[in-house]
């Protein structure tokens, strides 16, 4: 029997096969694993180092951190070429590996002081992408300083926030004895005041001062972040500290003088007479400082 080439079936078969095969050729099973360690130039394992893994074929990137033993694991990766980089405290390491499907590949990174590869001159925002499939972060022309993790700065920011939270809480707590001090001042400064009234006022004032200076300590000692200029309502908050800060030093000194004069049966006179007005300005500035960060203006 002589075989006769089908006139319509063959093109249709080729069409179906090509449509089925094309997506399969691009399919990748993300089941490879990358493991490794990050070590310092002296050979010590580095904990909490940020490790970035970038698929050079697709541009897809993921980030992880080393554990306390300096190890890292990145599971569920597609097979292909990868750039693995690690950075800690200005030290960097970059390595390239090829991952096979279903495989577990180990890469050990030793940090050095060498700078990261710079962004190629062609990778400006308007330059064409080098990839034909997906754009990657390196296509966008950001500087390495913008895209690299800075663990040291994050630690500084964390410390800063912790200290400022304490500052904020103590500042709020300080407001309570401060208000009580102002209220008791009505009975402490008149002609018919008792020694008890004055003592209560003095003790409350001392508690306010102690809390205030503890709160101020946390604000002053909170680390500053390089390259940050002060903008917005926080400027008002800081400026008011130049009023209530000296006021909080001066008010107890003047109060002690006034307390002594009263206990000696004298009328409050001289510089001690400024205790009341200085205290009012100080308390006013303190209240305004609280409001400056609480209300939007």
């Amino acid at each position, binding site marked *: 029997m002589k075989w006769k080439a089908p006139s319509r079936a*063959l093109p249709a078969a080729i069409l179906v096969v090509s449509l089925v095969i094309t997506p399969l050729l691009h399919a990748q099973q993300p089941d490879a694993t990358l493991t490794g360690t990050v070590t310092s130039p002296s050979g010590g394992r580095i904990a909490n180092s940020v490790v970035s893994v970038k698929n050079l074929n697709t541009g897809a990137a993921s980030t992880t951190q080393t554990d306390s033993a300096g190890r890292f694991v990145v599971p569920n990766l597609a097979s292909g070429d990868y750039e693995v980089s690690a950075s800690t405290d200005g030290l960097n390491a970059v390595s390239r590996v090829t991952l096979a499907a279903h495989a577990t590949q180990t890469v050990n990174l030793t940090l050095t002081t060498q700078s990261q590869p710079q962004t190629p001159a062609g990778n400006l925002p308007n330059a064409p992408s080098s990839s034909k*499939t*997906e754009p990657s972060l390196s296509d966008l022309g950001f500087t390495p300083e913008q895209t690299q*993790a800075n663990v040291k700065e994050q630690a500084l*920011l964390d410390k800063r926030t912790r200290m*400022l939270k304490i500052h904020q809480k103590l500042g*709020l707590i300080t407001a309570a004895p401060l208000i009580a001090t102002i209220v008791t001042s009505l009975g402490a400064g008149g002609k018919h005041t008792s020694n008890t009234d004055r003592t209560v006022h003095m003790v409350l004032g001392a508690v306010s001062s102690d809390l205030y200076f503890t709160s101020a300590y946390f604000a002053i000692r909170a680390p500053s972040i390089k390259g940050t200029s002060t903008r*917005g309502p926080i400027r008002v908050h800081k400026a008011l500290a130049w009023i209530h800060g000296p006021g909080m030093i001066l008010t107890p000194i003047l109060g002690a003088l006034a307390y002594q004069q009263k206990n000696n049966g004298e009328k409050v006179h001289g510089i001690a007479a400024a205790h009341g007005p200085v205290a009012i300005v100080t308390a006013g500035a303190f209240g305004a400082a609280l409001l400056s960060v609480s209300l939007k203006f």
Partner: protein
Amino acid sequence: MNKPKLIALLPFVLCTLALAADTQWVLQQCTLTYHVSHPLHQTDGISHAARGKGICHAGQCDFLIAVPVKSFDSGDSNRDLHMVQVTRGAEFPMVTVRTRLLESAGNDASIQADLEIQFAGQTAHYQHVPFQLTKQGADVRLSGTIPATLTDFKIEPPTLLTLPVKNEIPVRIEMTWHPTQ
């Protein structure tokens, strides 16, 4: 060449044409605005520093938009530093948004995009986020709002006077894309 052979070659010809017709898009202008609600006041943080690219291939376009976390300005440096701290912005300095769209979507008045967002060391997916499209010559202008929340990225809510902000942080995006070859 006879007709059956021509039909047989059609898919290969179409593939070749599709490869030749690859186009790229560049993000020309972009404004990203996050909104934070606190019992005492509302805050918007704005960034104009986003960059983005789109690569179209075989009828589909892959877009990437990236913006430095530090570039957001809420009008108060203390608040911005606090935002960078809670979002671990020094450790994970970039926010990236990826999406895949049909190339023909550029002709629609509105689209629904599936977004993959990497932020604060986490990846979140948002399905069917609506965007409005307007054409300005060859450029395409898109605007929409991503219904992001703090819990999507495992961010501890920042507090002011011990009161936390709301979990919802909707991010408004307005961008203009320009086609290039």
